[in-house]
């Protein structure tokens, strides 16, 4: 069986798709066979962030409805042989996605030897978000240091603890990871933005990583190259750390302090 990871948040626009793409790439870089699925039916986006939008022939719904095989619909990544994308349907309505259909696809991926399936959840707490989390073994809850996002993520943490198959079957709780993104250490230092510690205290859970607010994220999405592949960017390096932690390695948090290096130090190192 593949390990199922849902990337979810409640609130939209917080960085779920950005994170799903980078985590999937990072797991593939670690040698794992990975599929990343776009659950946002009607608002397909993951294909663009992964840079495979022109190669989408069949989508998730086609497989669910038996109109295409899993093999036909999986898009192989150009960079990593062990990484595949399953696009969301752009034309069908949300009702085309059913619990049995999702289960069939996930089981199929397990049979195909996939080790990890990353589920990019749509926003909200409706059917699409529910289906994305239902079969998960692990959850990455993406949160921004901002009031509505923090509140929504607490709501999602509650749903993860009760409304998943693991919870219903009493199979032990799904592992919950809090991923704080779009973090701006300068604004935190000025008292304008909730800190890592604030968010951890409010939600009562430690973060699995902190992704700084970064211009490189837009550049990455412009190019269709997940930001984790931009090894010089802080955001990319922070995602690499998160992948290592998800795989059980210890990595200290980085990029959460204001960079105090002067120009000369930056040029000559230090």
């Amino acid at each position: 069986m593949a390990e199922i990871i849902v990337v979810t948040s409640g609130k939209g626009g917080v960085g779920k798709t950005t994170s799903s793409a980078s985590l999937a790439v990072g797991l593939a870089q670690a040698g794992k066979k990975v599929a990343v699925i776009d659950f946002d039916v009607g608002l397909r986006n993951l294909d663009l962030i992964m840079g495979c939008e022109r190669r989408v022939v069949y989508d998730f719904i086609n497989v669910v409805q038996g109109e295409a095989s899993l093999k036909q619909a999986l898009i192989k990544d150009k960079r990593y042989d062990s990484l595949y994308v399953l696009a969301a349907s752009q034309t069908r309505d949300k009702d085309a996605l059913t619990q049995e259909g999702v289960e069939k696809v996930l089981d199929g991926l397990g049979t195909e030897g996939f080790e990890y399936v990353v589920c990019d959840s749509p926003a909200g707490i409706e059917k699409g978000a529910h289906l994305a989390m239902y079969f998960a073994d692990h959850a990455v809850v993406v949160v921004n240091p901002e009031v509505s996002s923090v509140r929504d993520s607490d709501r999602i943490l509650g749903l993860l603890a009760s409304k998943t198959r693991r919870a219903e079957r009493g199979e032990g709780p799904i592992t919950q990871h809090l991923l704080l993104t779009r973090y701006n250490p300068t604004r935190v230092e000025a008292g304008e933005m909730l800190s890592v510690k604030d968010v951890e205290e409010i939600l009562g859970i430690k973060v699995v990583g902190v992704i700084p607010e970064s211009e490189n994220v837009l550049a990455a999405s412009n190019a269709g190259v997940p930001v984790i592949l931009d090894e010089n960017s802080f955001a990319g390096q922070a995602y690499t750390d998160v992948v290592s932690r998800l795989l059980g390695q210890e990595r200290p948090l980085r990029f959460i302090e204001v960079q105090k290096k002067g120009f000369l130090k930056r040029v000559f190192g230090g």
Partner: protein
Amino acid sequence: MGILDFLKRKPEATAGVAKERLRIIVAQERSTRGAPDYLPLLRNELLEVIRKYVNVDVDAVNISLDRDSGHEVLELSVALPEHKPG
């Protein structure tokens, strides 16, 4: 305030306010999590019935849902007005 002051104005240090507000709302929402949707409605109807007999305040009826060792307990308390003799 002059236009220059306005342009130079820094955002305020509001993170503390955000944290305090979140602390309260998150605690409140956690305490009613999983409670059925009909709870507020049930409360109102009970209040109406009780008011047929006793003149109680709007906030006299308190409903809460507790969970202990697998049991769900719907707790209901009604604060009656002080009994006036005679």
